[in-house]
């Protein structure tokens, strides 16, 4: 634990490698771990994206002609699992959380640096294990939901490796969650109150509460499922008296909050990015905090809206409809507050802002279809169709992934000391935004008109729309190239960024870029107004405003 205001005088640890090698080591530095999460997550994103590409190629024709049917189901299972557990969750939580939270609370590292390193190093082996299961005996093919009895009757090897891998990733997530809660609540710099923290801290506190409460339920469920597969117990196996609906309740008790685990940190990151590039205070700080906590509470009691067609009793359907629809209220508050943050600002429409504003537009659409899906009578038609596929990609891609890119453009100068190329960034945004909407918007129509999800073959009348969707996916794949080129190019010969290129007030910018091992050379700064932008204080330096 590092609560000291002054940097420690202990000599640097001889065992900790320096230079680029430290990124491959069991480093205890929260900034190194953050970047490890980010780069590792991005590599898995490329794999998950290639799998998505394979799905879209298969769907350019109504027949199952690109890959064997079993392989198609493995591909869609791996795509979902990789994108959720190895890309979005680790990056919005692990990467940015580790990098930023100690800065924001004025600490020199996370509360438990070793636990932190363990949490990261669980990810690469479990990810590799998941992917190599394909080459051993075929990967799991029951979807990322692994509903029994399908998951019990499909080949056991792949399913068991899938379970083991998700268990390890869940463990990593719980370690991270405990660490964030401890860091935010216990390592705050003296003099810094909770209500003075940057919004991302609140988002991470809320998310970590969800992680710690719900992930163990998933772990327990998957362990029971593995008993059914390996030891032929009958928890979920109906042929020996098990109950398949119980699995769904337990699974969604984690997996619905998992959506908030993916989007709440994104909400937090956007709340950091918008004020800086609009040169305005974050609008409605207090209501933002309460809406995050409102989403956390409501997020725990909405899981059965995934089961409206599973055979749930009418009263239960009704309760979950109302609870789900009400999440729109705190979420709506956040969106109105962000627009109000833009209002009257002096906005620099750079790549970070473009991706953040793209996020707002995409997520509003995903939220609207979400409220519609919460209505039982609406859901019974479109449940398990491409309408749902479109909806959740608007949430997790149009939402979380757009924010990840926005955050990379925003914090790259802090990570590396170099600027990213603006023109390439704008090109990247344009290609991603058009490709994304072209890929997923038409899928709403497909679902409403009768195309179920997770199919390798479909009614020929849907071919044209599917081809448009696949073309959008191609643009999304291509949009990765200018981004990768930009990152590599900028690391090698990018423009020097200086310590604070955005003239931001949050504490991570009040140090060198990249920051020293213990974050600040001298005493940790006390930032009481992280959003103190505004014309009134125009002539004051950040130090004077304190």
């Amino acid at each position: 634990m590092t609560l000291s205001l002054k940097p420690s005088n202990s000599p640097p640890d001889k065992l900790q490698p320096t230079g680029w090698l430290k990124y491959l080591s069991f480093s205890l530095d929260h900034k190194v771990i953050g970047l490890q999460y980010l780069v590792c997550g991005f590599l898995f994103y490329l794999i998950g994206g290639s799998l998505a590409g394979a799905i879209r190629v298969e769907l350019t024709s109504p027949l199952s002609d690109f890959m064997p049917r079993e392989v198609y189901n493995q591909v869609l299972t791996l795509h979902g699992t990789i994108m959720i557990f190895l890309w979005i969750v680790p990056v919005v939580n692990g990467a940015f959380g580790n990098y930023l939270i100690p800065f924001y609370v004025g600490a020199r590292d996370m509360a438990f640096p070793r636990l932190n390193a363990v949490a990261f190093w669980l990810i690469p082996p479990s990810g590799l294990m998941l992917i190599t299961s394909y080459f051993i005996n075929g990967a799991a093919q029951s979807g990322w939901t692994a509903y029994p009895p399908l998951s019990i009757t499909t080949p056991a090897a792949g399913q068991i490796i899938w379970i083991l891998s998700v268990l390890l990733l869940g463990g990593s997530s719980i370690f991270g969650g405990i660490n964030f809660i401890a860091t935010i609540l216990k390592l705050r710099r003296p003099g810094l109150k909770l209500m003075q923290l940057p919004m991302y801290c609140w988002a991470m506190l809320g998310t970590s509460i969800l992680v710690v409460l719900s992930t163990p339920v998933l772990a327990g469920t998957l362990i029971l499922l593995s008993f059914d597969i390996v030891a032929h117990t009958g928890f979920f196996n109906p042929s020996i008296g098990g109950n398949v609906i119980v699995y769904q309740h337990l699974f969604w008790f984690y997996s619905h909050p998992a959506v908030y685990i993916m989007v709440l940190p994104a909400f937090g990151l956007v709340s950091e990015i918008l004020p800086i590039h609009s040169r305005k205070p974050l609008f409605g700080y207090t209501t933002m905090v309460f809406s995050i906590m409102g989403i956390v509470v409501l997020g725990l009691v909405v899981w059965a809206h995934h089961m409206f067609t599973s055979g749930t009793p009418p009263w239960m359907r009704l309760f979950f409809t109302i609870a789900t629809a009400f999440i729109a209220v705190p979420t709506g508050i956040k969106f109105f507050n962000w627009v109000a943050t833009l209002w009257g600002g002096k906005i620099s429409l750079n790549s970070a802002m473009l991706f953040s504003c793209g996020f707002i537009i995409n997520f509003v659409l995903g939220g609207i279809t979400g409220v519609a899906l919460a209505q039982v009578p609406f859901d019974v038609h479109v449940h398990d169709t491409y309408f749902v596929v479109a909806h959740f990609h608007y949430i997790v891609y149009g939402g979380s992934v757009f924010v990840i890119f926005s955050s990379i453009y925003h914090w790259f100068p802090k990570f590396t000391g170099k600027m990213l190329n603006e023109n390439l960034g704008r090109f990247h945004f344009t290609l991603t935004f058009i490709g994304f909407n072209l890929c997923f918007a038409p899928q709403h129509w497909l679902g409403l008109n009768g195309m179920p999800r997770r199919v390798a073959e479909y009614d020929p009348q849907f071919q044209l729309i599917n081809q448009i969707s696949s073309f959008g996916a191609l643009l999304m794949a291509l949009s990765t190239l200018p981004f990768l080129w930009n990152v590599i190019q900028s690391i090698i010969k990018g423009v020097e960024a200086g310590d604070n290129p955005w003239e931001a007030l949050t504490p991570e910018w009040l140090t060198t870029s990249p920051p020293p091992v213990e974050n600040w050379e001298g005493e940790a700064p006390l930032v009481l107004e992280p959003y103190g932008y505004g014309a009134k204080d125009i002539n004051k330096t950040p130090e004077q405003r304190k």
Partner: protein
Amino acid sequence: MPKLPAILTLITSLVLGVGGVWIAYNVDMLPEGASLNAPVYDELYRVLFIIGSILFIGMTALVIYSLIQFRRRPDETGDGIDLEGNISLEIFWTAVPAIVVLFVGLYSYDIYDRMGGMQPLMHDHNSQMESQSERVWGGIGSGPIDTSSVKNSSSLPIELTAMQFAFIFHYPKGDIISGELHVPIGRQISLKMESKDVIHAFWVPQFRLKQDVIPGQPTILNFTPTKAGNFPIICAELCGPYHGGMRSNVIVDEQEDFDAWLRENSKETI
């Protein structure tokens, strides 16, 4: 926050409202409806589409307007206005979504009720078939819907067994086994469904109905076809490699044609 002129606000709201309604009535995104609850469903869909269009267009316009209006001009330096919040605005945009959501919730409850979702299961035919201890869950439309327009009010029981990768229908009356579902127009069908292996789902997009077919737990789905024709039955729950090919047809006939089909295929004389 600079005040918007009242007249501009009014005009914008009107344009948005009218635009939303226009879009909902002119963009047809649903397949034809062929059951009693399809028109009820389409009504809900339209209302959701109107609200959704207004919200989406409104928010998008607001974001784009802000980005253009408040962009940093090349010669500008310094910060935007020093505005940290506004209590009345916050109350406004907490209250409005809350009211909209409450309205949508109550309205969809009404729709759900009209589809028969809240009514207790009718056990007239099924009670003899299953023991009391068995739990039977109804899908939506488990009760009779507006029976006045239904020619024949007693429902026709049919049993569905789903398996990888087929739907098998059994007509207790006549002991007919069929791979396709034949039903008469205007009569309520009571489909008792159970799966032999994994979870499947029975979905007819034109009926706007879907219900999972679960192993070990029978489910009941009631519906009344209103249009003659041939509609797809689609499995909507991932059930294995041939999930995409697990399809069948529902053939909705006039009563006489249905009776003829029943006579032809019947194993016993009716």
